[in-house]
């Protein structure tokens, strides 16, 4: 896998995850620390289904997507909704998602180790080897499938938000929940649906991620920092921001560390996550609203005069 190719695949998947995080942040205003575990749990589901049917791993995608959506819905109904009803502060909600992430980690561990016993094989740590993937013109299929996945998901999301009545209701409840409620929109339904979508996107990313990197139980805990970086760099309250940030962070995490490794040697490669975290901290300090809040027009206007 070429460096650029790998970087694009990673950026595609990261963008999918960042869109999910942003979506629930907009509707529920909770930064969800469990987003990474949503994806990794779905990866394990995808792997188990692949093991059971011994068919192409692509066959497990629909299951992983549904499973991801299912966890998303459960997260909202079981963990967040009761707390929101009690008017818990945003910090309390954040702590709750951290706790939920820990619960999911425990479940992933139990699930993977129990199934290892069942299959009589070690499945706690796995990867989809390259020969399971198709190839077009010498490029691994995951490059195309991940690009296709992001295009499809974005197309679906845009169609939903801008072309359907439910989408209008969703946008209205994102913009101003109380006003939307007065206009007869059921804000609860739109919130629930956003959690389903967020989980489903994470499930899709999770089903494809094993083609790119090895999955272990704690991968979700590691990847979550990149997801946060991606969402925040673009602006936590904008879907476009998530797309922009996902590619920026995803590409720079792989490419910057690659270039640095050429200068300083391969020992820098392990710091790839530090790159995204550094981007995150710098963005928060300089432009807390994210890149989408910069008024680019102002700079264009200045340069003309």
């Amino acid at each position, binding site marked *: 896998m070429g460096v650029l190719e790998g970087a694009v695949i990673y950026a595609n998947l990261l963008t999918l995850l960042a869109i999910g995080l942003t979506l629930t942040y907009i509707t529920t205003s909770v930064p969800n620390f469990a987003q990474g575990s949503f994806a990794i749990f779905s990866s394990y589901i995808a792997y188990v289904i692949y093991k059971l049917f011994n068919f192409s791993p692509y066959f497990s995608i629909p299951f992983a997507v549904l499973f991801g959506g299912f966890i998303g819905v459960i997260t909202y109904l079981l963990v967040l909704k009761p707390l929101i009803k009690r008017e818990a502060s945003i910090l309390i909600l954040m702590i709750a998602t951290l*706790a939920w992430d820990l619960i999911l980690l425990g479940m992933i561990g139990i699930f993977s180790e129990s199934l290892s016993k069942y299959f009589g094989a070690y499945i706690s740590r796995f990867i989809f080897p390259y020969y399971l993937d198709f190839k077009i013109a010498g490029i691994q299929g995951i490059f195309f499938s991940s690009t296709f996945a992001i295009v499809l998901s974005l197309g679906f999301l845009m169609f939903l938000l801008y072309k359907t009545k439910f989408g209008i209701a969703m946008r209205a409840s994102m913009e101003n929940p109380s006003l939307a409620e007065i206009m007869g929109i059921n804000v609860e339904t739109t919130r629930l649906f956003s959690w389903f979508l967020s989980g489903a996107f994470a499930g899709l990313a999770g089903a494809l991620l094993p083609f790119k990197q090895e999955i272990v139980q704690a991968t979700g805990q590691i990847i979550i920092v990149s997801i946060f970086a991606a969402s925040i760099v673009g602006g936590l309250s904008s879907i476009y921001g998530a797309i922009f940030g996902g590619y920026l962070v995803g590409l720079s995490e792989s490419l910057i560390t690659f270039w640095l490794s050429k200068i300083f040697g391969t020992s820098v490669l392990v710091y790839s996550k530090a790159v995204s975290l550094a981007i995150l901290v710098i963005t928060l300090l300089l432009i807390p609203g994210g890149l989408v809040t910069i008024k680019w027009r102002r700079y264009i206007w200045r340069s003309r005069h």
Partner: protein
Amino acid sequence: MAFEALISSILLWFGIYSILSLSLNVEYGYGGIPNFGKALAVLVGAFTAGAIVNRILIAMYSIEGATITQRSGFMKSTVDSIIASNPAYGIGLLTLTLLLAGVVGAVIGALYILPSAKLESDYLAITLLAIAEIMFMIAYYNTDLIGGYYGAPVPDVLAFIPGEMREWAFVALILFMTLVTYLFLERTLNSPYGRLLRAMREDPVALQFSGKDIMWIRIKTLAFSSAIASMAGVLYSFYAGNVVGVVNLFARVNWTFFPFLMVLLGGMSNNRGVLAGVLSFVVIWRLLDGYKHEIAELLNLPFDVNWLQYIIFGTLMIAILYYKPEGILREKPIETEPIKELKTKHSEKV
């Protein structure tokens, strides 16, 4: 697991986590600062012991070796044998490391909270978490700094105590430090400073209107509480004999999430409550850990009990947030000297 070992491990962890949770209580319980990177202060403690003091000792005895891990190992055997015959050396080393960790912790804590000048609430929490994660990542992957994933042995400051007594000596030492921390914090927080912190938590804007510099309070508070938390890091590193217990990838759970759980369980902004929270947590945690093989055998579990532990503590946290957000013990009014006087006068009248 022997019963004695279980008791000593409960007491030991009660001490370490009490110091850490009490310091988190100053920041989060009293001051309302969402320090989601609490683990960083513990890392500073381990860093002081493993990277700074170790290097000083290595230079003092001009020890040669290929890596910091190896050099520290050689140094440890030299220093341990000196401490074995000279208790004052060990106590001196411990005191020196604690003081140094206090200073380094205060400086790092003060710098670390600077982002709060521009950010608050969830954004601040994410930033602090990210800063701590970066530091842990560097400390873990860079094996030249503090040994990374190989760890770095640190001297046994209680080497003069015979083997079987060492565990209990450490327990006594740590519990003594816990008591000192508790009394010190009770005194510090039952003062106008404690009230200032609570005011900052409840309404920072109103506090600014009464002429207080919020940023300065935050810097002072974080310097103060991080200094305490780094001492917990030093104590744990010395107990474990290696910094590897702090410098690992589970830091976010062990050194940030668990202290938050204990503070919320015990009762925010109530030091006695926090101690109760720590004790309840540590007892459950150590029992589960101590009897994990027995539990797995008994229930015929096909997996490691550690995973179950995560589920239990995660659920416990959510349950507290939902059913008992005020914790075991409620917040109490701050008892400054004038208020105490008023109270005694009042009771005399009655």
